[in-house]
């Protein structure tokens, strides 16, 4: 029975089911209170967690997002039920950390992870086309490195406790979300009172949706970066059928909920600086390709015992802190004054630095 279910989840229908689930649940989470065109965004939500912990002090993006917690724990539950919880670590963790940092800096230049790029497009935000084009470009560069022998080396089986660090961390975050302690008068935990960080679905709805997605994504290995990589590397359309299902179903769900509004300027939590929407996601796509998974996939892997994926996640959270402390992240368009948003000169420099670092990683870490 377990084997038959595993074969189903590994089939085309399985991956489409995961895409459909995300495509329905993300717009519903938005309806239930999450920010616009951000029913789910792994990068944004990790950034909000960094803010809630006080790792950055951008007051409008601070909240411990239960979806992130539930993605990891949903994957842990699935992996335990199907005997796939395999503690492993040791494949160039420091490189994965650096890739996580720059993946986040690139994502926040665009203002979204690949999931949110799809959800933004499904909500009518045409800037997402630039972001997705950047993602494809970044993954294309990564695929050239893979073809030339790039890899980060083997991981090793390790102690069970190693595999439990990320699930346990998530339980700790859940406790902080529930009890919201104030550790000092003007210190963490911070929850935004205005801005995107203040917009959130009720706790149990966020947790429930996150657990369903975490479970399905662990079983089906849903991955946006992988979907592009597999098409380019070997003409394999398996994963991309799930990504396509996500986009189509999210668009239909948004239509039904009246959440579609086509345009470039003034889209919710987005800017219409075309070049940096594109280049931000080139950087993110390349970093994901070099690390072997999109931000969502890294969370699910960290839930099934992959310590290296956990290090990538911690790198992303650290990158979010840099992005806001150093003013690297994108600023949304200012609709009231008609000003196009974008990123600061520091943000531009950081994206270019990230591209150089990723190229060096891709060029130097290969088997002869």
């Amino acid at each position, binding site marked *: 029975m377990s084997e038959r279910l595993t074969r189903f989840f590994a089939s085309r229908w399985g991956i489409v089911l995961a895409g459909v689930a995300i495509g329905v649940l993300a717009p519903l989470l938005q309806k239930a209170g999450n920010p616009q065109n951000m029913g789910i965004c792994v990068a944004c939500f990790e950034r909000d967690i960094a803010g809630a912990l006080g790792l950055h002090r951008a007051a409008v993006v601070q909240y411990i997002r239960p979806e992130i917690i539930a993605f990891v724990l949903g994957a842990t539950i699935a992996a335990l039920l199907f005997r*796939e919880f395999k503690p492993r670590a040791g494949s160039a963790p420091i490189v994965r950390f650096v890739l996580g940092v720059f993946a986040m800096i690139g994502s926040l230049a665009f203002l979204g992870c690949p999931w949110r790029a799809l959800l933004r497009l499904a909500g009518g935000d045409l800037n997402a086309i630039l972001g997705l084009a950047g993602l494809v470009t970044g993954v294309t560069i990564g695929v050239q490195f893979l073809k030339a022998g790039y*890899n980060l080396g*083997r991981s090793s089986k390790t102690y069970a406790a190693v595999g439990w660090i990320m699930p346990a961390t998530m339980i700790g975050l859940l406790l902080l979300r529930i009890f919201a302690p104030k550790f000092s008068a003007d210190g963490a935990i911070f929850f935004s009172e205005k801005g995107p960080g203040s917009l959130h679905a009720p706790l149990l709805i966020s947790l429930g949706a996150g657990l369903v997605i975490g479970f399905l994504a662990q079983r089906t*290995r849903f991955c946006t970066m*992988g979907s592009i990589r597999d098409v380019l*590397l*070997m003409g*394999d359309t*398996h994963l991309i059928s799930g990504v396509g299902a996500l986009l189509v179903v999210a668009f239909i769900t948004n239509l039904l909920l009246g959440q579609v509004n086509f345009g470039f300027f003034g889209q919710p939590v987005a800017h219409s600086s075309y070049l940096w929407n594109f280049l931000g996601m080139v950087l993110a796509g390349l970093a994901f390709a070099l690390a072997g998974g999109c931000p969502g996939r890294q969370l699910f892997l960290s839930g099934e015992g*992959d310590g290296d994926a956990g290090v990538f996640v911690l790198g992303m959270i650290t990158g979010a802190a840099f992005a806001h402390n150093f003013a690297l992240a994108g600023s949304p368009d200012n609709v009231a004054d008609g000003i196009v948003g974008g990123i600061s000169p520091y943000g531009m420099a950081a994206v270019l630095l990230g591209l150089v670092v990723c190229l060096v990683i891709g060029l130097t870490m290969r088997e002869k």
Partner: protein
Amino acid sequence: MAKVVDARGFSCPQPVILTRRAIQEGQFPIEVLVETVTSRENVRRAAEKLGCQVEVEEMGGELKLTITK
């Protein structure tokens, strides 16, 4: 004598890349060693797509895929 592809510890797409390379070299049977069910399914799908048959054996937490054509 089977050609052995030791992909243990590699995460995807590495096991698939190594397997495809071995299949293209054309020396069968090929034995691919992997550790995760994800890699097993990915290698199986890639090999079947290239017109090969795949049999799986589980050996103490490791998985051995035997690929023939």
